[in-house]
């Protein structure tokens, strides 16, 4: 039997199936630097095959302001005003890292109340930073409402900073030796009120986004970074804990008395954007627990700065009576103080991961060299490994999930 010859009609359908002249070509697209989903001025050079990312090349440095160079010309105590401008969402964490490094070099013990102040404010900072992340990450993926909720709540935390430190963003509240001044009387009731309302708010957030099926589909299995890879790439913070590595500097190398607080370190091991989301959401709850405990301790009076002649300024009354006290104050305030020769590396757990300070002193009143190990910088360097091979829409989700702050990346 002979098979019938099949005649292909030259219909409109086959016309549509004409091979695409661009099908073999790779296209290079520049994402950013002026793009809302890049969280600042990150530029990504994406080599695309259709919608698939073949190669991603981050291009940074648009916000480079030479902060490390600036630090070399500031006095030890003045550097705090620069550190808080690096990672502007987690400014107190940066200050704390620097202060701890210099205190280690000087061998200074910080009084208990100052440590509690530091813990309270870094944890509030973690909350406010995670709230910005929550709002913008959800918005990148398409959930607009979460942004407004998050920023309304963050506003309350900024009010707390304003009450205690006088500034909303760049507080420079921690100084070498402790905190700049003690809390005002109005702070504790205000903070109490905020902390009372926060769990309810967090619950609302979780109901708004966590259960959202679109959000889950956009994040599960996206931007996968396996455990060993994540360690080799040097990821830290929630991004590393989303890859199943249980490492939190607050637990492993406790500073500022974190070992006396009771909190858990949330770890998820699905290694994707979704895991990082869950880690941060749980972390907010833990931070809230620490804040409540720290505020309870702060009801007791105490010293807010170490009783060290270089760090604590003399009492006003004594200055008016004794000329040598006056001279001491004048010298500390004008010339600054010296720090013993040596070098230290001190790292803390910021909202983004391990922020480390390598401080070198040559025995003068200014730091010889400060190098900042910026968590966003290292986390961002692993971005190509996370996005290559995935769709272009997922790139936005992954950038949101590693929670970069370009001020921290570029310094």
């Amino acid at each position, binding site marked *: 039997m002979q098979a019938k010859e099949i005649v292909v009609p030259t219909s409109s359908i086959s016309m549509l199936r004409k091979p695409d002249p661009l099908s073999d070509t790779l296209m290079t697209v520049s994402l950013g630097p002026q793009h809302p989903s890049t969280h600042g001025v990150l530029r990504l050079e994406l080599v695309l095959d259709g919608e698939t990312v073949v190669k991603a090349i981050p291009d940074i440095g648009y916000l480079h302001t030479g902060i490390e*160079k600036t630090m070399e010309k500031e006095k030890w105590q003045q550097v705090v005003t620069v550190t808080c401008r690096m990672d502007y969402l987690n400014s107190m964490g940066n200050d704390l890292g620097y202060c701890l490094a210099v205190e280690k070099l000087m061998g200074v013990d910080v009084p208990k109340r100052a440590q509690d102040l530091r813990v309270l404010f870094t944890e509030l900072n973690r909350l406010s930073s995670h709230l910005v992340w929550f709002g913008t990450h959800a918005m990148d993926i398409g959930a607009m409402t979460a942004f407004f909720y998050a920023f309304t709540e963050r506003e309350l935390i900024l009010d707390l900073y304003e009450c205690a430190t006088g500034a909303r963003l760049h507080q420079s509240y921690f100084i070498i030796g402790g905190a700049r001044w003690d809390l005002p009387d109005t702070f504790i009731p205000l903070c109490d009120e905020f902390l009372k309302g926060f769990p309810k708010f967090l619950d609302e957030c979780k109901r708004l986004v966590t259960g959202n099926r679109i959000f889950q589909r956009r994040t599960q299995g996206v931007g996968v970074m396996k455990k060993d890879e994540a360690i080799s790439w040097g990821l830290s913070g929630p991004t590393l804990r989303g890859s199943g590595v249980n490492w939190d500097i607050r637990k492993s190398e406790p500073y500022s008395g974190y070992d006396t607080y009771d909190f858990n370190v949330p770890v998820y091991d699905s290694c994707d954007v979704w895991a990082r989301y869950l880690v941060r959401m749980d972390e907010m709850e833990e931070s809230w627990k620490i804040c409540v405990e720290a505020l309870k301790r702060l009801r007791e009076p105490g010293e807010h700065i170490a009783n060290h002649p270089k760090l604590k300024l003399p009492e006003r009354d004594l200055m008016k009576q004794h000329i040598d006290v006056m001279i001491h104050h004048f010298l500390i305030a004008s010339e600054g103080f010296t720090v013993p020769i040596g*070098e230290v*590396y001190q790292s803390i757990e910021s909202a983004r991961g391990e922020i480390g300070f390598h401080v070198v002193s040559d025995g003068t009143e200014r730091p010889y060299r400060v190098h900042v190990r910026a968590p966003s910088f290292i986390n961002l360097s692993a971005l190509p490994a996370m996005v290559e091979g995935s769709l272009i829409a997922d790139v936005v989700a992954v950038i949101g999930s590693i929670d970069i702050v370009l001020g921290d990346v570029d310094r």
Partner: protein
Amino acid sequence: MSQNLEQTQNTTRYPRYADASLIRSRFTGAVEEIIEAASEITLVAKREGLAELMTWLRDEPSLRFNYLSDISGVDLGEFASPRFAVAYHLYSLDHNHRLRVKVFLEEDDARVPTMWNVWKSSNWLEREVYDMFGVTFDGHPDLRRILMPADYDGHPLRKDFPIKGY
């Protein structure tokens, strides 16, 4: 006042640093000096054999430095010899201890082997040191400027670079 200072007992807990004596006995050639200061341990290494030393530090079961925290360059001054120091800050997630490995370099021969094959986080950190100090990392897959523009002249964190810029 200074008497008071000496009497103060320092009770702050600092991160734990690894015992470096084992490294000295194993790598007699590559280790120049072990410095203990400010509750930290610095291992001053020679550039020759640095890659082997680092690979061993990562793989040796009793040390397991599987995490490279930071690479930081230091310019010791315009007229100093050696002029540059490159400090590697290592951390072990398994043993929870740290170590600083330091290499000194002459100005006219400022090059070190890359750590790209040991830790991937060295990728951008090395580019940053190259950008800021002009130290070359041999074997780096993509050694370009990272923070400064590609056509920029000079290395900003060198001590002879004016603070105002050129």
